């Protein structure tokens, strides 16, 4: 590949930043160094997540929006959760590339990590891929324990789970329920609620169906999510007491391609004290966690980060 060809592969922004020549071997060496340094994406801020303020609408639905390319990237290093049992003993996803933009009202985070499999629907011994962003309920430097907070110093979590997004995709595509997706060749003899005597789609059929789905019947919010509900907002004050937050404001859209997940999670900047308000121009904090479904990661079996500084660009 010629040096000139290599140059054309770099983004316009990078070409502006990089000075190159194609004369002689020295130039080739320099070129290699430059491609190495500049050709892998946007500039990196290893110290914090910097949310750029933009005037355009937030790319809340689009992990591939060009807006992300011009946004500083924070490489978040993850570690095994080894504080509480069950712990994770073998490392999973160790690096998440984080970018963030905001419009003064909401902040969108783009989270990207390598994952050789997209695990959508959990089944026995296999869970769904998931990612979460965690914020201290109260701002300031006196942050709670980064591992799910602590009693009296809670956290709020925006939790995206692949199965919830896939539920919506299948519903739109008329692709059947989770069982049909997991076992497309399965033949089911009979469901009582699909007996000929029960009118399809009737309240009777639904009531019968719920009778055999107790979690659905009692309204467990993890069973079915509302449209656009691939993200659930959770509250916690330490391990083991995670519960849905009273306010559910946020969204999440992800795509898996070429062995990488890219998820956009959006949350309001300040929707009141119950949703861990953020402030512009000062240091906030965020922490991350990733679950790899193929490895059976669920609950406390996860990769997590510590608190990472988060700065939302002031106007």
């Amino acid at each position, binding site marked *: 590949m010629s040096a000139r060809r290599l140059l054309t592969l770099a983004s316009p922004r990078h070409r502006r930043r990089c000075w190159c020549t194609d004369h002689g071997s020295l130039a080739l060496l320099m070129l290699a160094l430059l491609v190495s340094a500049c050709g892998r994406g946007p500039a990196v801020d290893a110290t914090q997540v910097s949310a750029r303020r933009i005037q355009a609408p937030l790319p809340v639905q689009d992990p591939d929006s060009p807006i992300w390319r011009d946004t500083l990237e924070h490489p978040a290093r993850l570690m095994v959760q*080894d504080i*509480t*049992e*069950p*712990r*994770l*003993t073998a490392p999973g996803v160790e690096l998440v590339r984080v970018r963030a933009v905001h419009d003064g009202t909401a902040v969108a985070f783009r989270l990207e990590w390598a994952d050789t499999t997209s695990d959508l*629907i*959990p*089944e*026995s*011994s*296999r*869970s769904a891929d998931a990612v979460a962003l965690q914020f201290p309920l109260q701002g300031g430097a006196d942050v709670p324990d980064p591992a799910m907070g602590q009693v009296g110093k809670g956290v709020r979590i925006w939790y995206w789970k692949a*199965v919830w997004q896939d539920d919506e995709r299948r519903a739109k595509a008329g692709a059947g*329920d*989770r*069982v049909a997706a*997991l076992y497309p060749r*399965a033949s*089911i003899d*009979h*469901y*009582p*609620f699909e007996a000929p005597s029960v009118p399809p789609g009737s309240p009777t059929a639904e009531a019968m*169906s719920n*009778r*055999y*789905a*107790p*979690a*659905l*019947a*009692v*309204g*467990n919010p*993890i*069973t079915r999510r509302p449209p656009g509900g691939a993200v659930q907002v959770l509250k916690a004050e330490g*391990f*083991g*007491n*995670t519960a849905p937050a009273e306010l559910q404001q946020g969204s999440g859209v992800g795509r898996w391609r070429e062995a990488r997940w890219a998820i956009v999670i959006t949350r309001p900047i300040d929707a009141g004290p119950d949703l861990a308000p953020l402030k512009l121009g000062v240091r906030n904090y965020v922490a991350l966690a990733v679950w790899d479904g193929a490895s*059976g990661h*669920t*609950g*406390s*079996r996860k990769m997590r980060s510590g608190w990472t500084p988060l700065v939302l660009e002031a106007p």
Partner: protein
Amino acid sequence: MARVYNWQLGREMSYWYSEQRPKRQFGAVFDINKCIACQTCTLACKTTWTSGRGQEFMLWNNVETKPYGSYPLAWDLQLLEQMGEQRWNGSTYEGRTIFEAAPAGERVLGIMKPSGDYAFPNVGEDETLGAVDKGMALSLPQQIWMFYLARICNHCTYPACLSSCSRSAIYKRPEDGIVVLDQSRCRGYQECVRACPYGKVYFNPSTGTSEKCIACFPKIEQGIQPQCFVNCIGKIRLQGWISPPAQAKADNPIDYLVHVRKLALPLYPQFGLEPNVYYVPPINVPDRFLVQMFGPGAPAAVRTYREAKHDKTLAGLFALFGSTERTIPYFKIVGDSAVALDDDRKEFARVPIYEPVHVRKAEDQLLQIMRSNTT
């Protein structure tokens, strides 16, 4: 971990929570020798509780053939292999329980069961150990053996599912010791599925939560035995209440069979959960296998069972199995009858201990045909 007393092991052991026994504990006795694996219990449970989406593979009650059958696949063999050889010293267990053998970072030594492990509920069905050749066909006593093992949740005193749940979504009901999984708290982590050594917690992919046997508690609350008990055509099951040994009552049917006569034994007591479904062990199985499965009391239990028909109390108690839908908290023998008593020790059912025996001649002289017993 706390230290708790497990009377089935004859010693204290480590457990995630401190010892706290319910007001009374659901208990049951299954007489394996009477089970014919008709699966009526399985169907009774299936149609009652698990006929929904995501429950297709789910059998809260199942009957498997031992030694080769298992559901989920090799649920017991996998764990036995992982635990390695363990040892009893008389009636005291000197090996490690699944709580004591938990690897670093785990609450319990558990095994994750892939969904394919639930795909063969009939594996090993009716298979005997060894091949029957012409010589063996007439050889007695039985050298070729198998038996049917009916299984439900054991509603253990020290449940592994409960201790493994980091969300405390599983609890023992204080009024009856039934282990239930709160469907509003469960977030589908599957720790309980991994932890239960009996493979009796299932993940429902449709709801994303785990589910398990609830001992038909709505029936229990009305004083009625669970579906798999009252539908058992072999009348192998009796549901009641099990006391700790020190509080055992001789007129409590479960206490009598478990504590007084030591005839009914827990399933794999060495796992350490103090399971509360007790089995009258099969009489045609080698002692070594029985000891592995039911503990060191198995050979004596078999001897007692062989003589049970001559023991009026035992024979009467077994006659009460399947005689009534109602739970039998107490019983007594009156003359040639066995009597079921309620919580106030008032009679509500009575059965003859020995049924009259009628022998019909092989030839029906009236119709002039030979009778057959294979109708």
